[in-house]
């Protein structure tokens, strides 16, 4: 990557977001290959990597905006727009397919009224596909807030949804 030329001025950015980013970059920018850990840090702090943080991150790491934009958009996990309060990662890889993942996927989409990469109208859930959660001995699988669930069925999904609504 080529170092960026000094940027005289950065686009306007919300103070809260700016502080969160600078807090992360101050901690992590000196380690080798710092960009991914920094993007994880920003997403952990803000829930996403806002577009307007890209010039700031680029400046802090002495990279071009294009470099940072390229990395953010390469990885499925990083998002440039806020998600719902909770993200449901539904596995659609082969092992889960062999145990009815397609049917489960259809049910979940219908139940939440969203397709993959979309958020429910009330802003509660975002649905994302994932290709393997390593729970292939207990397929089909899904993960919510780092909590893994196995042997999911349309019925157990509904039961889970109901328990979450309480």
């Amino acid at each position, binding site marked *: 990557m080529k170092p960026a030329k000094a940027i005289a001025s950065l686009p306007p950015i919300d103070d809260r977001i700016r502080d969160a980013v600078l807090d992360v970059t101050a901690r992590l920018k000196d380690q080798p*290959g710092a960009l991914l850990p920094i993007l994880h840090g920003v997403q952990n702090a803000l829930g996403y990597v806002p577009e307007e943080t890209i010039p700031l991150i680029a400046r802090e790491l002495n990279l071009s905006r294009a470099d940072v934009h390229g*990395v953010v958009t390469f990885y499925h996990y990083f998002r440039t727009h806020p998600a719902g309060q909770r993200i449901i990662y539904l596995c659609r*890889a082969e092992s889960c397919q062999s145990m009815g993942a397609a049917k489960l996927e259809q049910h979940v989409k219908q139940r939440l009224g969203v397709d993959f990469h979309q958020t429910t109208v009330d802003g509660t859930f975002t649905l994302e596909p994932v290709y393997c959660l390593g729970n292939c001995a*207990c397929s089909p699988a899904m993960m919510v807030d780092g909590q893994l669930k196995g042997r999911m069925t349309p019925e157990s999904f509904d039961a889970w949804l109901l328990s979450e609504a309480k």
Partner: protein
Amino acid sequence: MSVTVYVPCDASAVSLGADAVAKAIECEAGSRNLDVHIVRNGSRGLYWLEPMVEVATPAGRVAYGPVQVTDVMGLFDADFLHGGVDVLKLGLTEEIPWLKSQQRLTFARVGVIDPRSLDDYLAHDGYRGLAAALKMEPAAIVQAVTDSGLRGRGGAAFPAGIKWKTCLDASADQKYIVCNADEGDSGTYSDRMIMEGDPFVLIEGMTIAGLAVGATRGYIYLRVEYPHAQRALQAAIDTAKARSYLGDNICGSGKAFHLEVRMGAGAYICGEETSLLESLEGKRGQVRFKPPLPAIQGLFGKPTVINNVITLATVSIILDRGPAFYRDYGTGKSRGTLPLQLAGNVKQPGLVERAFGLSLRELIEGYGGGTATGRPVRAVQVGGPLGAYIPASQLDTPIDYEAFAAIGGMVGHGGVVVFDDTVDMAAQARFAMEFCAIESCGKCTPCRIGSTRGVEVIDRIVAGDAAEKARNEVLLRDLCQTMVAGSLCALGGMAPFPVLSALDHFHEDFAREKQQEPS
């Protein structure tokens, strides 16, 4: 007297309610005024019996499973703390035939020990491999790995010793050990089990690798889908540092090795070694041209050994017991054991570590007990999403690298996904191309464009009449050939394998006339 009860903290066991079971046992013991010490072990890998609870008795550990919260009171009533009889009782864990018939070398401690306890690790032969390595010259360590016949367990099966020798012979001011823990293949979870159930064995293996090639710094590149493994590794690294098994002066030897976990971000391609290195450097995970080999110019341009979790974790026992001990297992050029992962539509899924040479049928029918749905097995995908679909007629193929290559398949990372006779193989072929299109890094044209065209051509085959089907099948086979021969890495180069195997062995699924839409 306190009774020790084991409840796995393995992510899969937790996905079936193990945390709640552990809590319920603690509460119930408290209310009955019984002294119970709960250890959160890894999983023994008998996943149809998870959450599997074990109780330490004078006769040995007694297993109960699958245990749900609602079973806990009944277990106490049956006096399970003293091995009492219950419908869930499985007997002595070590005597369960499914487990007893295995040859667990890499997985010797997984499910047995407390993964957070370094003392438990040491009490079960841990760090003996490192102790041996510290007394050896670097070249002798590399020679031991070469002599063991160990080949890369990530999928490519390249001899580990040769990779290490190349790195050892390269001279540089800094070298690196990188562990590929981006276990993205569907149907595989052995890396996850090791990292969660015996993280010190991986740390030990990487430290030995560092001594062998003269690397003082290591990275574990872990996929973001594995938060449980991340916590387990971080805790183990912190402990190892505090007890001088990592740091500037390992065990007082004056040798240094530093280790760090780095998280991926949901890109399957980063399991490819050069793209993983790009990602570790903070870049887009795009595949590099080879040469130069990573062993000569790898991470940050420095000589780097990059191996899979299982490969590195196995180095510990090779150094402890000697290369001959390991090499004596296995068959032909496939030496040692392979942790196979039974997954998908199978009655008894789980981790089966056996010497190479076991047949696929023995694995699926013997260990697996057939399909979970009770229907006949129709297809088996071995080696992840880039592995060929193997028809039921080829189940007698022995599991070794060469035998699988001979039938156009690959052992890969040892994942075995079973499908029953309801599977639509044209849909599976389409998915293989779709997955390749989603996960392609975009660097080479055959993979980036070919995968999308592949989806379209398969759609035309499925939807078309006989003439259209025939025309497009020629096109699809031609496209597959281009991808196999012209792609830069295994993603585009092997995604055609499941497609072609589906075409060759399950042609009827493509030949079906399209159902008329009801008017």
